[in-house]
């Protein structure tokens, strides 16, 4: 018979306001096995834990129930307290009477009634708990960073500087990411490439960092401390060791009609290409989809002109398998497709562009060599209209419900830069709200208005109508003047909503990291664990977790790195002891459990069993505790009830059901 203690937390007034904690404690005393109950202001405090420890020792408790907040918050706290009192930590159960009770119910009587039921269920469960012991697993001292933008580069540098090996996997031919496409950065107007390139070079030169460009993560196995990852190195068709990066192949390539991804399709590139001048590695890639040699078999110009003999049309994709202790996701973002927003005429006029396209136009290495000109006819614009919140803060199926966060600032930046370099250009910005929380951000925006005379209009645009002469007629509203207005523009720039890169979904699935409805990766806790995924060993860096600007991304990248380093620094990890366990006497050797196990943790062995005095050899299931993650799929699949999950056993869960339905 268990001797159970029940501890009811007030959580200040968080619980006590809608749950009569004294009554819960009283009701608990009526339950079988309960020999002690107590309530206290803050159970998680030192004093609260001391009460629990004292009660365990004085009353000789064999199991405890803490009625408090979610086990996701303080289960570990109370398990550790129990351990200090000499009780097995897995003899602790939590009744969640805060998140699942007091915070959602307003009526004291109703809240109390439900809290009593939840407590009853936890008591019923702990009555059947058995002491469990964690195993140990090893930690591979190497980290994987998925994505080679500023987030991934910074994370890799920080982990490598702490002394651990890091691999960066980047799907495009070069590291650098979105930041390499940006011309200037707000609010200081630094040249983006000038501050990014040194970091790229540093990462490439670091002896602890290995960079896989033009590569993708293909398969992930294992778990925290011991991930096994397959990386597909796509065939570059250029020998990385031989290539000198002279660029002759790109010059001579006869096919130059592929829209440049780096310049957002504003101009074309050759079929063999490096995305931009400062690319790392400075080794081109042959785009087999567009290369004449690969399409028709005839050509081969690049191989002929290559002095180093680096061109290799026979090169095949290569799979590299590597072990990692920690994985950092830094997959970044893209702008949304604008097909559904064609009231802005994006697909109807080349002079309606996204802000990222404007970055390329403003950049000296861009399609217009940095001259502000219209894509349609190369003329210098006189009037420019910027439209904010294109697809952001839109709860319909067209857009994204969230604020993209960076648009207000980069629009102010663009407006300011244009007015500075081309004072004759009139700049009008249509906005819903100007959001500038950040150091020196609002001052920056006000400078655009006060010093540079950018015309900010509160209101949205309903339609952009291209005129026969190529002008754009912008029909918008000035809400402060309560007038519908028509503005003639030569160029319209759309502050397009950002969304997580499309690759994130498959990567999250491979890592079993959770993802929200907008495809942003979810944090383990929105406030207290913002750079960790709920999946142990997976960390989040940059926009894959939520919209953010460059300084925030760099800060988060560092935070993700230190979390990864914290993991890599450990020699051993304690494993979850809530693993499956087979009853050899009941097992019929059918293999159903092994078939559903996602971890290959179940094997079969011939074993001598003693079935009520009869000794015989049988084929029975055996669970590898180091591999089992405790999902329980096998327990339900087993036709004879031989498989059970420790910590969540059939009897325990049925006891909970019974207690709730009583």
């Amino acid at each position, binding site marked *: 018979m268990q001797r159970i203690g029940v501890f009811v937390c007030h959580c200040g007034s968080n619980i006590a306001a809608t749950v009569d904690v004294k009554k819960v404690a009283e009701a608990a005393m009526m339950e079988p096995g309960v020999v002690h109950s107590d309530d206290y202001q803050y159970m998680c405090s030192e004093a609260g834990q001391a009460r629990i420890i004292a009660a365990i020792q004085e009353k000789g408790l064999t199991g405890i129930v803490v009625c408090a907040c979610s086990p996701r918050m303080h289960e570990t706290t109370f398990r550790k307290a129990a351990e200090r009192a000499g009780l097995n930590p897995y003899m602790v159960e939590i009744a969640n009477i805060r998140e699942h009770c007091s915070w959602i119910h307003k009526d004291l009587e109703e809240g109390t009634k439900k809290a009593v039921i939840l407590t009853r269920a936890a008591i019923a469960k702990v009555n059947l708990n058995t002491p469990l012991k964690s195993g140990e697993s090893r930690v591979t001292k190497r980290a994987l960073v998925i994505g080679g933008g500023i987030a991934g580069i910074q994370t890799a540098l920080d982990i490598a500087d702490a002394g651990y090996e890091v691999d960066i996997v980047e799907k495009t031919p070069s590291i650098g990411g979105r930041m390499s496409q940006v011309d200037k950065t707000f609010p200081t107007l630094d040249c983006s490439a000038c501050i990014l390139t040194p970091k790229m070079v540093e990462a490439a030169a670091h002896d602890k960092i290995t960079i896989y460009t033009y590569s993708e993560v293909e398969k992930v196995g294992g778990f925290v401390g011991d991930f096994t990852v397959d990386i597909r190195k796509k065939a570059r068709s250029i020998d990385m060791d031989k290539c000198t990066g002279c660029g002759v192949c790109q010059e001579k390539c006869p096919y130059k009609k592929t829209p440049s991804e780096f310049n957002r399709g504003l101009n074309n590139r050759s079929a063999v290409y490096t995305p931009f001048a400062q690319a790392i590695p400075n080794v081109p890639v042959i785009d087999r989809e567009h290369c004449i040699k690969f399409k028709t078999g005839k050509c081969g110009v690049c191989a002929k002109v290559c002095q180093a003999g680096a061109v290799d049309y026979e090169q095949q994709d290569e799979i590299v398998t590597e072990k990692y202790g920690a994985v950092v996701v830094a997959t970044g973002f893209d702008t949304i497709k604008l097909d559904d927003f*064609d009231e802005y*005429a994006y*697909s*109807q006029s080349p002079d309606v562009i996204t802000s990222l396209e404007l970055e390329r136009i403003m950049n000296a290495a861009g399609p217009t060599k940095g001259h502000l000109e219209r894509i349609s006819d190369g003329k210098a614009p006189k009037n420019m209209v910027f439209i904010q919140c294109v697809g952001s803060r839109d709860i*319909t199926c067209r857009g994204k419900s969230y604020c993209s966060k960076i648009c207000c600032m980069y629009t102010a930046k663009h407006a300011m830069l244009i007015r500075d370099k081309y004072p004759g250009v009139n700049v009008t910005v249509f906005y819903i709200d100007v959001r500038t929380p950040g150091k020196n951000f609002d001052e920056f925006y006000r400078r655009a208005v006060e010093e540079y005379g950018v015309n900010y209009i509160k209101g949205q645009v309903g*339609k*952009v*109508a291209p*005129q*026969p002469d190529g002008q754009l007629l912008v029909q918008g509203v000035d809400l402060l003047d309560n007038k519908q207005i028509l503005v003639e523009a030569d160029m319209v720039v759309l502050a397009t909503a950002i969304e997580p890169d499309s690759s994130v979904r498959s990567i999250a699935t491979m890592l079993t990291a959770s993802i929200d409805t907008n495809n942003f990766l979810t944090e383990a806790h929105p406030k207290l664990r913002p750079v960790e995924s709920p999946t142990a060993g997976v960390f989040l860096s940059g926009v894959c977790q939520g919209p953010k600007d460059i300084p925030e991304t760099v800060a988060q990248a560092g935070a993700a790195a230190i979390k990864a380093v914290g993991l890599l620094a450990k020699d051993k990890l304690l494993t979850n002891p809530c693993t499956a366990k087979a009853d050899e006497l009941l097992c019929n050797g059918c293999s159903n459990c092994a078939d559903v196990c996602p971890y290959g943790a179940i094997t079969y062995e011939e074993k001598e069993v003693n079935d009520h005095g009869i000794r015989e050899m049988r084929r029975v299931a055996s669970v590898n505790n180091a591999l089992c993650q405790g999902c329980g799929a096998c327990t339900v699949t087993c036709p004879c009830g031989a498989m059970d999950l420790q910590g969540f056993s059939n009897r325990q869960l049925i006891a909970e059901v019974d207690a709730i339905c009583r």
Partner: protein
Amino acid sequence: MKYSYYPGCTLKTKAKDLDAYARSSAKALGFELEEIENWQCCGGVYPLGTDEIASKLSSVRALNEAKEKGQDMVTLCSACHHVMKRVNDDMQHVEDIRNRANNYMKLNEPYTGETTVLHFLEVLKSRIGFDKLKEKVVNPLKGRKIGAYYGCLLLRPGNLLQFDNAENPSVIEDFIRAIGAEPVIYPYRNECCGGYISLKEEKMAESMVNTIMTSASGFGAEMLITACPLCLYNLNKSDVATHLPVLYFTELLAEALGVKEEVQHAE
């Protein structure tokens, strides 16, 4: 292939052409429009009020008739298309409207939006196919520069009607290409013509129509085509209409298919 056909009030009176050209073209393309018996007017505008039931019943009756025949329903008039699709959507998704309409109708089997509603243009696009249509054209309208006028009811609300991209439609342009002519794209092709407002606010409708016509003409259109009798009426009242005629798309279809003459003789 037989379709249940819902012509609507205007196609029986002022817009007989729209109807007659469509029927003969359908025949030439190998499908038949079987007019729904005893159809009643759809009301011209979709009743937006959440508690409007009676005004939706005539549509439900027609939709149910098509369902009983096991046919898809085809409409030609933009307004009918709009009303039918939206009422059908209500019958599929809005429990309250579905229950009350069915209680009132007392059908043997309740109607729950089973019928597929198609605009004639959708039949051409997805059932016949514009490539196939192109093959059937005997009299391609070479060299003609034609602007599509969609108006509002054919397209909006886009996610519900599922007709085309509401902000950048392409069905009529594809149709124009299929009959051998050259489409002219202009920005106001999905802006409202003024609709019924022209009855009491003539000036207002006039300025809206002029914007559309001037823009189309400026982009080089020599002719506009539409699916809606009301749009046609409003657009034709514009001064620009003297050099930019507005026609029903079915008239050009019949011409391209070589059946225009026979329709005119029959009249």
